[in-house]
């Protein structure tokens, strides 16, 4: 008789103790990710957390699932390898704003284009955390950092515009401190078939405390939609505004994205061919041969 499977608990998902700064948003992301896994009773052994390098990159170490803490900016190719090898696994990618949009921009762009099946979390603290305070592609103009001490020079990239411009099939934004909104967003992202791009506003009290005001919430607007959206987080952000938005409308998404980074919710969702499915279909459509025949066509 098969042993009855024990329900997955939060405790089951702990491995070693996190070592982020006090008040770091990565802690709440970690908890949210665990909660989501417990809610969905995902199997630990069939889940892989993939990351690049950065404070954000440490997440896999603290999740008692499979995990790979890869190279700076290179989480996407590694995640793709896992998905191609084992399309049945649950794959979560964790990547900082520098990791995603500076050194890793090309892989992210092609991950989005390929639309392979995974949940991609962009931990946006608008700064390089692990290397101690340099300007990142999302750092707001004017912020002095170690690399641009007279103030960061360029307008930040708008990650939602970026993903829309590349044709991403799922785009959402949430924040580490918005407990239910974060978990609900993960849920939508996970259930989407394809590359689910989730932008996460993440607090870095150490180097960029002013990036996100998590005590006030009147600056926040939630996008909502019954079918495809995520409910607003009345507890986490009591003073937030709420705006109806149809995530199937590309033009609308583009316009709403002008309000980023003050807007959270599902911006866009589209059913689109998924790379790993396409490959499987293509391979399936080819007549399978036995390796005995391997040399046949080269015989003279």
């Amino acid at each position, binding site marked *: 008789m098969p042993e009855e499977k024990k329900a997955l608990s939060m405790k089951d998902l702990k*491995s*070693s103790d996190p070592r982020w700064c006090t008040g770091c948003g990565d802690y709440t992301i970690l908890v949210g990710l665990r909660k989501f896994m417990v809610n969905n009773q995902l199997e*630990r*052994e*069939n*889940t*892989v*957390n*993939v990351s690049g*390098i950065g404070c954000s990159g440490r997440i*896999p*170490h603290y*999740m*008692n*699932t*499979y*995990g*790979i*803490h*890869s*190279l700076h900016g*290179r989480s*996407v*190719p*590694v*995640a*793709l*390898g*896992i*998905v*191609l*090898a*084992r399309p*049945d*696994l649950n794959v979560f990618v964790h990547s900082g704003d520098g990791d995603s949009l500076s050194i890793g921009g*090309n*892989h992210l*762009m*092609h991950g989005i284009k390929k639309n392979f099946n995974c949940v991609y979390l962009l931990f946006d603290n608008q700064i390089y955390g692990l290397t101690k305070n340099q300007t990142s592609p999302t750092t707001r103009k004017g912020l002095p950092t170690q690399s641009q001490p007279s103030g960061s020079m360029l307008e930040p990239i708008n990650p939602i515009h970026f993903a829309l411009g590349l044709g991403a099939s799922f785009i959402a934004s949430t924040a580490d401190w918005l407990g239910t909104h974060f978990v609900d967003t993960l849920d939508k992202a996970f259930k989407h078939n394809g590359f689910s791009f989730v932008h996460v506003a993440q607090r870095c009290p150490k180097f960029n405390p002013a990036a996100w005001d998590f005590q006030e919430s009147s600056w926040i607007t939630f996008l909502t939609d019954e079918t495809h959206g995520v409910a607003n987080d009345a507890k986490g952000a009591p003073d937030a505004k709420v705006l109806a938005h149809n995530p199937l409308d590309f033009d609308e998404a583009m316009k709403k994205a002008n309000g980023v980074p003050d807007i959270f919710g599902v911006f866009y969702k589209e059913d689109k061919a998924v790379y790993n499915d396409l*490959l499987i279909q*293509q*391979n399936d459509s*080819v*007549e*399978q*041969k036995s*390796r*005995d025949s*391997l*040399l046949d066509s*080269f*015989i*003279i």
Partner: protein
Amino acid sequence: MAEIKDFRFELLMDAGNGAQKAGDILVKTFAKAGVYVFIEPIIPAEISPPKRTPHSLSGAVIRVSSDEISNIGSYSQFVLVEHEILLDRRCDDLEFDKDAVILMDFGNERRAKEAYENVSKRVLDAGLNLVPFSINDDSEAIIKELNGNGKNMYYLGLLSYFFTVDTSIVEIIIRETFKKLPAEKLEKNINLFHNGYSYASSLKQDRYEFPSLIDESEKVLLDGNTAMSLGIIDSGFKLFAGYPITPASTIMHNLARLLPAYGGTLHQAEDEISAIGTVIGSYFSGVPAITATSGPGLSLKQEFIGLSVSAEIPCVVINVQRGGPSTGLPTRTEQTDLFSAAFGSHGDSPKVVISVANVEDCFYVPHVARYIAEKCRLPVIILSDYMTSSSYRVLDKLTLNKMDDIETIQDFVLDRFFMKRLPDTIEMVKGNQDTPGQTGGMRRVTGLNTNEDGFVEYSSVSNQRSHEIRNQKVHHVKDALLEPESFGSQDGDILIVGWGSTRSVIEESVQKLSEKGLSVGGCHLKIVYPLAPMLKEVFSRYKFVVSIEVAYGDSMKYTPFATLLRSETLVDVRGLIAQATGRPLKPVQVVEKVESFLKENVNA
């Protein structure tokens, strides 16, 4: 009619005129007659260079022999060339035998009288035998009807006459090759072939004949990259991730066609970094994966190669060497990525580097690479080169392994690479090496240092432990290496060492030198990192040890291979030939160099 056992000739035409097709047809005909063939295609550096320019030189150099051969030999004894510009250009390469017969098409002579005169003078002055010919009017008319195509078939006819092959067999192969052509066009091509054949007899030149060797064993015609692709499938790799680059690309092209039929997946990545990242992701998940590239791509992969070392995720990288540094000479051969393969990744990153000597090795090397990569959980780099990748050979049919589990690797494959089996279990830095899906084995890997439990650790003791275990893996490989292949005398005056594609040049030159009564040995390595442990003992049996390499070296700088040998053995190994001209070495060059070396150093 001269009966010959070993002969090299070439067909030179403007790019796009079908010289390689004609060569292939002829080669297949030879092969059917039981003759061994080695072909080196001449491919222009541009995609379609303008005709009647030096850049347009295209064609095939073909060596035929009644024995197995695996190099292109030294000089061409017979040349068929389309026009004077190509001949002039090809003369620069110094690839013609001093008595070579040169058949040149004079069809363009009226247009370029002076040029024809100059070139004729050049070859006659060099003592070569120039035989002018032209395409007869009938055939010219047909070629016009074919919009300028078909000249190659006429030339094929000429060659078929001079090499005394069975025209009916050639005809069958032409029909097979052009089966997609409309019937009318096909017949015109056949006509041209026959016209060429009959015209040839009018030239009153000697013909050549090979001893008939009708051999019932099955033969295959393969180039190195095709053999590599088939080896990848046979050895059980299920994912190939790659990015196009000359000369590695054709591995991807082959696999794009073949891999899906054999249960695998072909993935074109956005760049070389991504390709190896995907290989590592796949292998982490338990699915054997491989990538292939050339120099610039190898440089880009270095960071991920280090991750493979540290995270103990197997990974296999094929690097088809071409001329360097930088973009270098993408369509020429060199052996200069040895250091970059062995030592390119920052930090102490122990790995294994295996080279291939020939087309058969290309087929079997993926098996060995996978075996080592998975047993030791480290990166294995396969070094091929442009020469091996793109030249093709008639071979006795290869033996399939149909490997899934690496332990089923057949002994003869390991023997071929002069190694024995590795120990059953090899210690890893991380005790748990489970793959996703395995219950209870949940683990995290990282490029940071870890302790045995896989947790990040910064202590001195733990870091030193990791270094030791990683190096120990490579030491296991070293311990498993047998004495490398040797040729000629087991001791004596001089030992010629080499690696990779110089093997048959060593073999052939040692044989020739031995026939001359000289006390010469040859030693060839396939696994080049780590080095076999008994080299010092082997080298000590000779007065001098010299290396031959298609890599730069001079009196102030040893080649990479010589550097490694010197450090390993403390024997004064110097480069006898350490040239990177973009061309493979010639047996005759080695023979000459050894003779003069011995004269100066031993018999002086």
